[in-house]
């Protein structure tokens, strides 16, 4: 038998062997950029060299056939190089402006919508869901596909006031990050405990420690060590489920979707902000989640119509205020919108600044 393989702990690969030569040559010396059309960026370096980037959407969950198709496009139209963005879009770079139009045409022809640059709605940051995760309340790929289909015009055009970054998460752990809009699972009932399995599957003190509101306590049930949930305290977050799968939080009926708006990572103009709950109780309705999609589209259209250039979602709402946000999106404002978590007082309006 062969020697056991000793891994080569090579870590993160050096990007230079895989980088388009024009990027390598002008590394660190880019000077400015513009966007000749949606989906296309032109960057110009100190050397005077320019590179055109053509950006297109992918489904992220790629079969090798699709990857090879992208490679073929890369070879035929873009010097054999490409990169992916942090949002699973693909970018091909060319140094000759004349190659832009054919590249765009080829991508579109092969089913990859060109867009996602500038003030467009880019691809959704998506997570695993039923396809792969062990704790999902919904699917991610399906939600993303349904939403991107609905928003395709906004991906292909730059008609938004600023970039729109959407995220989704398939459980309340929220691997998707903050988003201008976020579509996340929100459970509405405490976990249902399978007491027969707790003793064999769960380290009880660890589970107890995991609950953010100390709603879990060890208990003997039917003579076996198990756990008990104080249903009055429980906030249905599902944090107990990963370390203890017998605490079933997912429920076909009561695991709902919620929509959040105004998350922002950039420190641009305004400081980064967390997204805020605007709608919950939305049915988790595969395969196309029409109710969630509708609300997202309503919000997008209100933002598009009302925000000023450069205003991110949160900045638009800061200007027009939450009363008007709920009005223009026709979403109900309820007691659930009022923060109850630590430091909640800070989210109240402690001023005489008001909107009517």
């Amino acid at each position, binding site marked *: 038998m062969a020697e056991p393989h000793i891994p080569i702990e090579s870590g993160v690969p050096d990007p230079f062997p895989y980088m388009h030569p024009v990027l390598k040559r002008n590394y660190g010396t880019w000077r400015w950029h513009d966007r000749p059309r949606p989906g296309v960026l032109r960057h110009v370096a100190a050397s005077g060299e320019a590179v055109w980037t053509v950006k297109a959407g992918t489904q992220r969950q790629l079969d090798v056939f699709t990857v090879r198709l992208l490679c073929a496009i890369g070879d035929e139209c873009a010097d054999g190089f490409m990169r992916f963005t942090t949002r699973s879009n693909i970018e091909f770079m060319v140094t000759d402006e004349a190659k832009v139009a054919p590249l765009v045409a080829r991508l579109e022809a092969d089913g990859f919508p060109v867009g996602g640059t500038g003030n467009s709605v880019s691809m959704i940051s998506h997570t695993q869901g039923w396809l792969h995760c062990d704790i999902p309340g919904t699917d991610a790929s399906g939600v993303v596909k349904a939403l991107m289909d609905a928003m395709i015009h906004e991906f292909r055009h730059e008609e938004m006031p600023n970039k729109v970054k959407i995220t989704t998460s398939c459980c309340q752990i929220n691997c998707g990050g903050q988003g201008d809009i976020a579509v996340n699972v*929100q459970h509405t009932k405490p976990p249902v405990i399978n007491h027969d399995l707790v003793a064999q599957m769960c380290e009880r003190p660890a589970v107890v420690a995991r609950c953010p509101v100390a709603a879990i306590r060890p208990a003997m049930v039917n003579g076996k060590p198990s756990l008990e949930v104080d249903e009055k305290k429980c906030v249905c977050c599902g944090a107990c489920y990963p370390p203890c799968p017998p605490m079933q939080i997912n429920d076909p009926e009561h695991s709902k979707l919620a929509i959040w708006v105004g998350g922002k990572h950039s420190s641009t103009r305004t400081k980064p902000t967390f997204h805020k709950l605007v709608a919950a*109780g939305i049915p988790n309705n595969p395969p196309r989640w029409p109710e969630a999609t509708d609300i997202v589209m309503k919000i997008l259209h209100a933002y598009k119509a009302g925000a000023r250039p450069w205003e991110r979602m949160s900045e638009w709402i800061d200007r027009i205020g*939450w009363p008007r946000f709920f009005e223009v999106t026709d979403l109900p404002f309820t007691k659930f919108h009022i923060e109850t978590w630590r430091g909640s007082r800070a989210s109240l309006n402690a001023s005489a600044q008001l*909107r009517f």
Partner: protein
Amino acid sequence: MSKEMPATPMLDELESGPWPSFVSGLKRLAAAEDKPYAPMMKDLLGQLERSYETRKGYWKGGTVGVRGYGAGVIPRFSELAGEFPDSAEFHTLRIMPPAGMHYTTDILRQLCDIWEKYGSGLVALHGQSGDIMFQGIRTANVQPCFEEFNALGFDLGGAGAGVRTSISCVGAARCEQSCFDEARAMRMVVNAFLDEMHRPSLPYKFKFKFSGCANDCANAIQRSDFAVIGTWRDDLRIDQDEVKTYVAKNGRKWMIDQVIAMCSTRALSLNDDDTLAFDGESCVRCMHCINAMTKAIKPGDERGVTILLGGKRTLKIGDQMGTVIVPFLRLETDEDYEKLLDLARRVVDFFVENALEHERIGESIERIGLVNLLEAVGLELDPNMVSHPRTNSYVRTDGWAEEAAKWRARKGSAEAAD
């Protein structure tokens, strides 16, 4: 032979300098040999000098009051009574001034005359809560002194666990920004709670304050439990000719830097013809542009108040600003003012029933949550009550549909009513 003037070398240093000196005043009183209070004020000076030397206070509390009332007198007994016997008792009478602190010279003189007869001759105009503080009176004189003030139309203010003396800004009496009749609202509300002021039986103190606009000259937002602050619901009124005059006089850069760029919410822009572009949707009624161009811009016509609850200073949970519980209450007709009073009553009732001992209402809100308070008081939720909706997903949202339906029903009926 008259009592000797105490040596006050440290205090004396506070007699120099351009600002009027309270020490000189104390000395004038102490030196008024023909007055009954001269000995008291000599000892007072002696004790105060001692405090300056030792950096320690020497007063302690106790129980002193007037018949029928349980508050309004701040009792002070000296720990150095042996050494300074004439100021052994040095209580304060808190007397409420006319709303807005307007006086004729005549009434002030009458007040002084009474005070000279019974008290020390020392008076603070005014205390931070708004009282006239007649400072320095013996226990025995408290009752007759109060009776004379009372006969003149003056009444004791608050102290202890009751409704407190209130302040309203000068407002309608002399200010163009005023959005309601501050003095009327203040008197109407406070005078309805005199029982709670004079016989304090609340969980803890409760302060009302009234400012005619968001400039908040009465410091209502942080220094009162129940803040009433003027505002308007329609758009502000702009006189574009006056705007042009301002621009012509001060220049475009002034206009951009001092008005446009300082608007809270980018509700303003400068048009190329030097008129002001105003976006009512964005305006938060912050007063800045009005302050900056008082001749050109005014509050709208549909005026009223915002009500905020829970402002207070540091104790126990740290300082708190009041937060909005009523975004807009029109204040025009008698019925409108009745509504304000009715709301104040419900809030105080809630306070009595729900606050823990020594808990301000701001602390109650912190403990039980705004929503519970609104429900108990019978107020409707409004997004104006938050800076932003929740950012944390730790909440149980079953019941969403019911709550959403409530909102839709309210909106439906509001639209139907419009």
